[in-house]
């Protein structure tokens, strides 16, 4: 890239390794260090799991004490997180009741444009239409919206044609409308949502922003998964938060994703996973200093422009863009939680086993976000302008998050019993050996009480019941939460371990498009 073409970039974003995706893209000691970092998460997770097994065999008493401590920790963690969910639920409901249009009307918001990008692959046209219909229902001036349907050429001509059909139907309603087509097989890119968005941002800059002399500072970009259906006040809420932020151009704005577009059609497993993901995002809404962007989110266009629109060579592009922004801005980049929902699809498939497979693959892709830990740790050793305390805190917190995601459910629900089966004879004869499963079971039951809160909150976030479903389904929607211990292992721990192991062995993952289906 020429110096001129890099002039708009922040200094750190001009580094050749700024957009590194994997160790093989580096050379020399950097490559070796990056590769080492890729090994660390998987190695730590496997060490913990194998460690518990070995401790159960050779040091069963210590393993038992550790498991008791871990079970207590789990109960307290559940209480801690439930507290956040409950608080955010209150805030979410409050935000949904507010008249954001009125609130924002007192602020100088008129000059701002909203660039809305929907990257898509081969999703049914109904999904695109549902998303656009959501936009048209917004309580916001549609003429201030620049809508981009970002198609993939590799999905075939039909996909691009679908975009043009939508443009034909809805284009006139918005200020600007663009259908971009991301060429296949661009060297250095990883086929997926990230590279598609990256290409679309370049194209919209040339064809609309620069062509119409719209100042970058006056554009707020929303990168939405194609199944995103906004609530009517989304842009008012976004605008209010933007204009009331301490650093509006150094902030990303995160809504709460509710995977409820098709919640009534989805099987119980899918509903539990969808709601669990929502709950996690609700927790993160109340601790923005510990979070990153996830899925659909919004950010100033200028901020994206200053980092060259993020990376086109990673799987977990939704979070990576935040880490790009944080590192390029020397640690000064915030997450502003909107506590306002957007609707998305729960993962489903035509068959039950297809659904299980899709959920597993989707969560493997999400948990492959561990590649971001490698990225930030690598750059934290390079960018000394970020305060050391902040670098250490973020790296430790993110690392612990990925580690506990994989290890905690397995240790708690499976390896918690290991000393009983693997321990020495001396251990088996003790009261400790007999009391351990009783104690762990009781603590887990207490922890499960948190699920009652989950079921109540999830019911309140469920869309109105279609007539074709009986009221009995509400009962199922409450009882479905008893599956959580299983879903935590099958759809969190195992895909996470799978992803970390792949990264550890350098078997890098590609982007897997979650099939979207609207009945």
């Amino acid at each position, binding site marked *: 890239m020429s110096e001129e073409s890099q002039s708009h970039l922040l200094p750190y974003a001009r580094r050749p390794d700024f957009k590194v995706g994997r160790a093989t893209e580096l050379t020399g000691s950097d490559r070796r260090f990056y590769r080492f970092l890729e090994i660390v998460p998987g190695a730590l997770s496997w060490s913990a799991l194998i460690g518990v097994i070995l401790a159960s065999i050779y040091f069963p008493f210590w393993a038992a004490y550790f498991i008791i401590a871990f079970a207590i920790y789990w109960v307290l963690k559940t209480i801690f997180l439930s507290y956040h969910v409950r608080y*955010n639920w209150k*805030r979410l409901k409050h*935000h949904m009741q507010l008249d954001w249009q009125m609130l924002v009307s007192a602020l100088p918001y008129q000059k701002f444009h909203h660039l809305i990008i929907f990257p898509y692959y081969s999703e049914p046209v109904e999904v695109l239409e549902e998303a656009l219909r959501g936009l048209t229902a917004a309580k916001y001036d549609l003429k201030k919206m620049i809508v981009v349907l970002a198609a993939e050429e590799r999905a075939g001509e039909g996909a691009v044609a679908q975009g043009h059909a939508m443009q034909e139907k809805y284009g006139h309603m918005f200020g600007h409308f663009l259908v971009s087509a991301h060429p296949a097989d661009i060297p250095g890119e990883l086929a997926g949502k990230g590279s598609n968005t990256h290409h679309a941002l370049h194209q919209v800059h040339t064809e609309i922003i620069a062509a119409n002399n719209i100042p970058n500072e006056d554009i707020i970009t929303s990168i939405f998964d194609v199944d995103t259906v906004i609530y009517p006040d989304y842009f008012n809420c976004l605008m209010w938060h933007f204009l009331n932020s301490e650093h509006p151009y150094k902030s990303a704005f995160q809504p709460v994703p509710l995977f409820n577009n098709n919640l009534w059609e989805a099987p119980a497993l899918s509903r539990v996973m969808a709601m669990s993901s929502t709950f996690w995002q609700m927790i993160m809404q109340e*601790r923005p200093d510990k979070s990153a962007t996830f899925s659909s989110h919004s950010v100033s266009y200028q901020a994206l422009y200053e980092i060259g629109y993020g990376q086109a060579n990673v799987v977990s592009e939704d979070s990576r863009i935040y880490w790009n922004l944080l590192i390029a801005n020397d640690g000064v980049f915030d997450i502003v939680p909107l506590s306002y929902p957007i609707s998305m699809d729960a993962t489903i498939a035509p068959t039950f086993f297809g659904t299980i497979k899709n959920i597993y693959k989707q969560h493997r892709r999400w948990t492959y976000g561990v590649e971001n830990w490698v990225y930030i740790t690598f750059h934290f050793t390079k960018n000394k302008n970020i305060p050391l305390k902040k670098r250490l805190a973020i790296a430790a917190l993110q690392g612990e998050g990925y580690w506990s995601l994989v290890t905690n459910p397995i240790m708690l629900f499976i390896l918690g019993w290991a000393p009983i089966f693997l321990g020495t004879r001396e251990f088996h004869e*003790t*009261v400790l050996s007999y*009391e*351990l499963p009783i104690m762990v079971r009781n603590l887990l039951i207490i922890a499960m009480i948190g699920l009652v809160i989950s079921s109540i909150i999830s019911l309140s976030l469920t869309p109105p019941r279609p007539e074709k479903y009986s009221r009995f389904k509400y009962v199922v929607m409450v009882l479905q939460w008893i599956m959580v211990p299983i879903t935590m292992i099958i759809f969190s721990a195992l895909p996470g371990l799978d992803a970390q192991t792949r990264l550890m062995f350098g078997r890098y993952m590609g982007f897997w498009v979650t099939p979207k289906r609207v009945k």
Partner: protein
Amino acid sequence: MPTEPQIKLLSYRKRQSFFFLLLAIFLVTLPIFIFYTSGYRLSFENEETTIVTTGGIYITTNNLDVDVYLDEVQVDRPRLFRSAYYIQNIENGVHRLVVQGNGLQTWVKELPVDPYIVTEVAAFNMPVEPQIRPIPEYRNATGVGVFIESSTSTNLFAKGTTTEPFLVTTTTATGTLTANTEFDFVMSLFTEMASSTAASSTLVDRIETQLEQFRFATSSVPVASTTEAFIERNNMRIVLRENELYARWVGSENTVPHYFCVFDAATSTLATRYGEHVALQVDTQRLSTTTPLWFANTRACRSEIKLDRKWQTVDSFFFFPDVNDLVILKLEDGLYVTEIDDRAWQNTQKIYEGDDFEVVVTDDNIYVEEDGRYFELLTTIEADN
């Protein structure tokens, strides 16, 4: 009208405070929970609050429909379909366990309980009234068993309760009947046993010969010896030596059944805890070179345990179906089940009376032949009886 949302983001201070509160709870509860699971309890006896150390008893039963008593107090039943009881909070000392049930013989044992340790024990309760499942030679069209006898008396199995209906006929015309294949199988077991033992003069000889014949049935490995014979299953060997029976563990020391081992202590202590016979046996084996005592941490493990034969001559012996810890003994006045576990004493329960019958035990069943009739002896009482 409000100009901003009324509910603010959860403040960092609140989050931190809550975090530290939970951290404090963690630090306080962790040692309490560890001490509790290790056996420490608070005692409020004598108007004083003290910390006491407790142990436990883990008892399994072969019958679901029994009651367990510890020191004359009934223990709460475990969850449905569970036959194991874990009794917590037992103070140091010797405790009396009783397991009984309707129509079942009572099992009683006194066992020492130590702090932090769980004493394991397996109880068994055989039916008071023998439970007999007749094995007729024929079945009629509806599947009911038919015995061909010289009289029509239906009192063929007077010593017990039969668990299946059967018919008795004097007619030898069997054209309308179907041959019972189980009868043929059981008869073949007894025929082979009889032919192989005909020439054997002593029990040792007979056992050796029988075991060779019934290897498939007993899962035993016979070994020839001039002084002893044994049967063996899953590393447990029952040895007949000089008209006495012994149980010997021949597996690895790590897997020795718990009742072979006692706490290594002075003879008087052992006698108090487990009975004088155990103390004597430990003392004997401590000096023995053929059956030496071996040690694992604080435990002294015996090489073999002598079985109770009720001062009678042993006619034959078998492993109890599916259980290694119980032995079936055919003695002079009947068929008995005895446990190898000799702590306190060995419970021995008679399961069939008499001296003129033959027995064959397979891995799953006890078959008896008496007065030319075959039947299976059941060791539990069926629910519909």
